[in-house]
């Protein structure tokens, strides 16, 4: 209701810097705090894996196989007698590393592609976005499967495959606001003032589209972790005996009638991480998306 917002827009708050804005973003949606806290714990666990792990995650000990939870083996042992807890914390490292690096790559490359396409427009834009759309319409898991199958499973290849599938969405998410920001008068003012294209893009467009890219980043990090786990589950992830969550679930699933509980701990772990990231992204998105602003008044 424009009349209402017109009345209310008159009250200007005091200056707020980037950090305050981010805090405000988190405060608009309390669940994002829960998400952030949870994710921070998982990251801490991954970093501290060597300290937290009680056993070697790879060394087999057939004598101790398939033990239930105990003081020595917090979550019990798997079919090779390896400590599940230790494998879980090392698995977190791998999951976060592969997901984080691949999304970072996709974020940088994709945003750059999208921004350039959107800013310059014309044939370049059409050509780039056509390729992106084609890649985007391809199921990311199938694309990942294909790439890993062709190149062989290794941490580097997994990162490459996941980054490849995530570049198109970032290109898209960066392009749309670039196109609309570009149309705004202040970009025209920049051109009228004789600023160079790189300056306009870096100083005047990027800060305005960055929040959306960041939101997308948190949501796609969730997706990346899920895809990595899926590939490992299918058997195309990092080779055993390296501990991965997807691989651990697979081990439990292969004997689902006898040792189904082996799947449970890594399943919960993935769910917690992905859910936490989605909560962060969700809360931030509500804040970034101007269309939904004011929705949570009072």
């Amino acid at each position, binding site marked *: *209701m*424009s009349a*209402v917002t017109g*009345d*209310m827009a*008159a009250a200007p708050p005091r200056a707020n810097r980037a950090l305050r804005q981010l805090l405000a973003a988190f405060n608009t949606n309390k669940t994002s705090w829960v998400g952030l806290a949870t994710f921070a714990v998982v990251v801490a666990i991954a970093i501290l894996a060597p300290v937290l792990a009680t056993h070697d995650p790879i060394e087999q000990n057939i004598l101790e196989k398939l033990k239930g939870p105990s003081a020595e083996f917090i979550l019990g042992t798997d079919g090779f007698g390896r400590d599940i807890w230790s494998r879980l914390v090392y698995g977190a490292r791998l999951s976060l590393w592969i997901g984080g690096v691949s999304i970072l790559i996709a974020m940088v490359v994709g945003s750059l592609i999208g921004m350039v396409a959107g800013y310059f427009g014309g044939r370049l834009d059409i050509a780039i976005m056509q390729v992106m759309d084609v890649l985007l319409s391809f199921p990311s898991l199938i694309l990942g499967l294909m790439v890993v199958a062709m190149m062989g499973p290794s941490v580097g290849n997994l990162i490459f495959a996941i980054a490849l599938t995530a570049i198109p969405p970032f290109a898209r998410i960066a392009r749309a606001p670039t196109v609309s920001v570009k149309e705004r008068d202040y970009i025209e003012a920049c051109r009228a003032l004789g600023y160079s294209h790189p300056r306009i893009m870096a100083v005047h467009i990027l800060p305005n589209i960055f929040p959306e890219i960041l939101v997308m980043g948190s949501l796609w990090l969730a997706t990346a972790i899920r895809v990595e786990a899926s590939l490992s589950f299918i058997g195309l992830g990092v080779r055993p005996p390296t501990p991965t969550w997807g691989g651990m679930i697979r081990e439990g699933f292969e004997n689902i009638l006898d040792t189904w509980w082996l799947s449970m701990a890594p399943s919960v772990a993935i769910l917690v991480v992905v859910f936490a990231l989605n909560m962060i992204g969700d809360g931030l998105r509500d804040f970034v998306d101007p269309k939904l602003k004011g929705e949570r*008044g*009072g």
Partner: protein
Amino acid sequence: MAEAPALSVQGLTTEFRIGGQWHAAIRGIDFDLGKNETLALVGESGCGKSITALSIMGLIPKAAGRIAAGKILFEGQDLAQLDEEHLREIRGDRIAMIFQEPMTSLNPVLTIGFQVAEALRYHRGMSQAEARTHALELLEQVKIPSARQRLDDYPHQFSGGMRQRVMIAMALACKPQILLADEPTTALDVTIQAQVLLLLAELKQLYGMSMIFISHNLGVVATIADRVAVMYAGEIVETAAVGDLFDRPTHPYTEALLSSIPRVDRTSDTLMAIPGQVPAINRMPGGCRYAPRCALRQPVCERPPALAPVSGSAPTHLARCWVRAGGDR
């Protein structure tokens, strides 16, 4: 006024919630709308003119706003007290409204014919076919060229001016007693604005309606209104017959407003700007709301003035000013 008014608004106060606190967007609005009369509500953005219309229609968003006090008397009922179901029966039937943005005020996925016919189906219980025939007549009445072919077209196939005509046809479908027109020509080019104003004036005559015409444009108001109420910061600050108001603007705000308009019909070197800006809804001054920007400010303006008769003018000419109109209760 000898004849009973078509609508009587008394002490209307509508509040909105900002940061958990309720603030009045309009306060103590009083006016009578006579039969066949066009009353213009004029003021700058944020003065509460649209809120007034939405309050009458019962369209204030419930989550953030409420009518806190006052009566809206229409046909012996107080609209402020009616429940949603009874209000709905009145809306679009006996009181209709048209809006500012013809581009966004029509539903993009429904045909023009359907949207015009809709009010007839709900209020008159007409069948699809009957309502459609009526819709065609209405579209012809608002002078949409080749209306018969356009009945099944969608809004995006119409120009801005034509969409506003469709809006008018929709509003008039049930022959309402009162039409609320909220800045109906603001989004249009001047030549189209002139066409729409003429159309509204003609149809008002034809239907024998009363009209509340909301505008920020004093030129448009001078063209169409019988009576004018000038609003500032949620209050009516001056009200008079259109001739009296333009001849003898009494409230300092009205006066300043009139002399801040560059006129197309005469050359004047002076252009008066009002210093400062409209106070925010949650930071209203306690006394006269215009005082902080007023050149005639006196110590007495610390207290809120009431609408009072302007001496030497018609008895219907009222102004809310201690200095110019006594303003005492």
